[in-house]
């Protein structure tokens, strides 16, 4: 690539505003971006940093309720800001393509994949349908989809999430665009699936020489994909460098804090082997209708301990939580609390039994009633279980807010929508603590949060455990989280427990097959990690076939 060549995408001093709560707020505050042909640029930052807004703006598009207030976006010399819709339409799909975070939500469920794939090429690209379909099959092959000839004939719900994400990438490449924007394409996928998609995307980008903007909040993922990385925060550029120097020597404090986020570890607590466990699940099986979801799951959790349950989606982690809370009555086996059997259905449990097991949910936005104030949300368990009223109740709510590091004077009267995601999750923690439980079930509590915020929540949970001695059943798909906080680890796959032991035992090699696969799939902060892993797996599979 010569320096004299004109850049493919050139964004200069871009300003974008968004309209909410009856006023215009700046989202992008003067960003410059240059992308050469064939280059992959990673955009990282926490949610609200303006990554997606910037990604869409590179197509000359802004979301409903947003407007571009200044600057220019030039694609191959053509100005996109203020361009006519017809002019933009000829670019989009043909020369600029977009891959969204959730492929499942982006495909039209009523049409076959192939029909959606060839639509742009046939209608705008002037390619006849037979050729477009042949090219689609070729792309499916490049993206390593199973049955490339037939997969296009399926409907979106008939293929798995990881396959759908690859089909979407193939669709974006249908017209060999000069630029593809990947907006968190693997965030919704399991780590084991993520690997396949990452490898497929990278191969495809290389094969066709497209330039790409790769948007993600996961630094380790971006490091595998991008030649150069831009760190964004609050709509501004924090730092920009090529991938290796960015990883080796970050310059800004904010970037350094992003790098350090995975270093948090709790002190392992010794497990009392003799005592009656606080919670015990004995050979429990359960099913949704005729579909079995749990098969003979057993687990033990002692007072003040953290048991992490890890597995992919569909492995039965959340079903185990539902079984313990009584939302999913088992078909066999039982749940014991402090040596006593709990009724299978939550409706048959006493108030006291309900009080002792509390739950924190994955998505704090839906776990808090948007029509209630914080004081009502945290206060309800207090008045319901403990009979607190009036001033005593407000006093206790204030104490709980202080415990979760939120200022009572500021937050007591607010509504959930006035809080950030991390603050909402803290409110959920306070609500669980208000019932003074001995066991809290944490269902993917950090999955919906940014890394820095998630780390804060984990630290808070750890401090609370040290102060109050509550036990956590911690459900997660994230290996790093398990490594950070677990005392005991339970690995689940297809509704069964496939491995368990203390944190030390589980994380020390040799691993059992599935545990090893899970752990090695976790992206590392090393640009060569993906290459090494793929080489290693290719080697082992060759050995196996031989």
């Amino acid at each position, binding site marked *: 690539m010569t320096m004299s060549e004109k850049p493919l995408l050139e964004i200069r001093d871009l300003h974008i505003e968004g*309209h*909410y709560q009856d006023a215009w707020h700046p989202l992008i505050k003067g960003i410059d971006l240059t992308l050469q042909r064939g280059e992959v640029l990673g955009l990282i930052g926490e949610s609200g940093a303006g990554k997606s807004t910037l990604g869409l703006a590179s197509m000359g598009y802004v979301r*409903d*309720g947003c*407007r571009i207030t200044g600057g220019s976006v030039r694609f191959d010399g053509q100005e996109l800001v203020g361009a006519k819709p017809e002019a933009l339409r000829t670019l989009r799909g043909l020369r600029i393509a977009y891959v969204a975070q959730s492929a499942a939500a982006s495909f039209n469920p009523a049409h076959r994949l192939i029909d959606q794939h060839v639509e742009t090429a046939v209608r705008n690209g002037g390619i006849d349908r037979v050729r477009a379909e042949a090219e689609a099959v070729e792309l499916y092959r490049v993206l390593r989809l199973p049955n490339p000839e037939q997969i296009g004939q399926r409907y979106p719900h008939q293929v798995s999430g990881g396959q759908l994400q690859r089909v979407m990438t193939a669709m974006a490449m249908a017209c060999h665009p000069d630029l593809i924007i990947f907006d968190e394409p693997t965030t919704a996928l399991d780590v084991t699936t993520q690997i396949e998609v990452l490898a497929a995307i990278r191969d495809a980008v290389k094969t066709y020489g497209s330039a790409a903007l790769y948007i993600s909040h996961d630094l380790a993922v971006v490091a595998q994909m991008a030649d150069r990385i831009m760190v964004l925060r609050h709509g501004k550029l924090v730092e920009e460098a090529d991938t290796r120097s960015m990883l080796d020597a970050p310059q800004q404090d904010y970037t350094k804090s992003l790098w350090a986020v995975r270093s948090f570890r709790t002190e392992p607590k010794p497990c009392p082997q003799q005592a009656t466990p606080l919670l015990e699940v004995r050979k429990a099986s359960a099913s949704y209708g005729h579909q079995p979801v749990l098969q003979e799951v057993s687990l033990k959790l002692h007072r003040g301990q953290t048991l992490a349950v890890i597995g992919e989606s569909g492995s039965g982690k959340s079903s185990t939580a539902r079984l313990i*809370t*009584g*939302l999913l009555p088992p078909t066999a086996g039982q749940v014991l609390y402090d040596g006593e059997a709990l009724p299978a259905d*939550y409706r048959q*449990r006493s*108030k006291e039994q*309900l009080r002792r097991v509390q*739950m924190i*949910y994955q*998505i704090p936005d*839906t*776990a*808090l*009633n*948007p*029509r*209630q104030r914080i004081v009502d949300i945290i206060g*309800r*368990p207090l008045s*319901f*279980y403990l009979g607190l009223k009036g001033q005593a109740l407000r006093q206790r709510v204030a104490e709980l807010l202080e415990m979760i590091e939120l200022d009572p004077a500021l937050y007591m009267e607010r509504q959930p929508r006035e809080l950030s995601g991390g603050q909402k999750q803290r409110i959920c923690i306070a*609500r669980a603590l208000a*019932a003074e439980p001995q066991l809290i079930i944490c269902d993917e509590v950090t999955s919906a949060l940014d890394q820095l915020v998630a780390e804060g929540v984990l630290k808070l949970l750890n401090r609370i455990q040290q102060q109050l001695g509550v036990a956590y059943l911690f459900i997660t798909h994230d290996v790093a989280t398990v490594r950070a906080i677990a005392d005991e680890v339970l690995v689940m796959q297809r509704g069964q427990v496939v491995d368990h032991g203390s944190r030390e035992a589980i994380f020390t090699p040799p691993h059992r097959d599935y545990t090893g696969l899970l752990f090695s799939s976790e992206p590392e902060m090393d640009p060569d990690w993906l290459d090494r892993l793929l080489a290693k797996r290719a080697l082992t599979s060759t050995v196996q076939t031989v």
Partner: protein
Amino acid sequence: MSLIKPLLRAPLSAQFGLLVIVLYILVALFAPVLAPFGETEVVGEGFAPWGGQFLLGTDNLGRDMFSRLVYGARNTLGIAFLTTLLAFAVGGFCGLVAAIRGGWIDQGLSRLVDILMAIPQLIFALLILSVVGTNATSLVLVIALLDATRVFRLSRAVAMTVVVQDFVEAARLRGEGLWWLVSREVLPNAAAPLIAEFGLRFCFVFLFISALSFLGLGIQPPTADWGSMVRDNAVLITFGDISPLLPALAVALITVSVNFVVDWVLHKSSGLKEC
């Protein structure tokens, strides 16, 4: 303050709609003050022309048209409001309970509603009213019951999307009773579409009562009512007089106004951003 602000910012159509609604309510409340003559008082010759002593002339029996229009607002509006309120109390509550409880309670209520909805509303109403007799109470109860089925459908559907959210599950696991779930967790989050539906349903009930009155099974004479006023004076139309259409115009105006307001509320609750 917080109430006035959105009003000032509302689109012109919604402001107009609200103004008309407030005017109607005032007229209904102060009917005896505003009306120059009594509601059923015969004050002159039948079909007297406009102007002079009678602002809008007299009807077929010689009652003052304007006075009857004013009293009609009170009767028709009052009964329609009461009916809608009752329909929402019954249908809304049952819908929420069906969504929260599910299972056989949901099945039972839903199938019952299906049966009621299977019979055309007007014919069903005519049938029941001719059996139980036509007085204001039975009118309100019958129409409320029929409309409650529609409200049930909506409130159940809206509540379904709320019930699956985690905060409702959290409340269930806390051990909360049905009343708390209905009143604190689900209803506040289902309120916006229900309020919009209230306005719309009010119009339907209003038109329905007018239609029944026109057919002679609604509000009974000599009580002033816009529907029956149209029928009573319908003969004048053949002489090119628009007096009989005045009550119909009053019905049309309130219907359009309510819909303006409903559109605005729906737009606000849909979360669409105006730019």
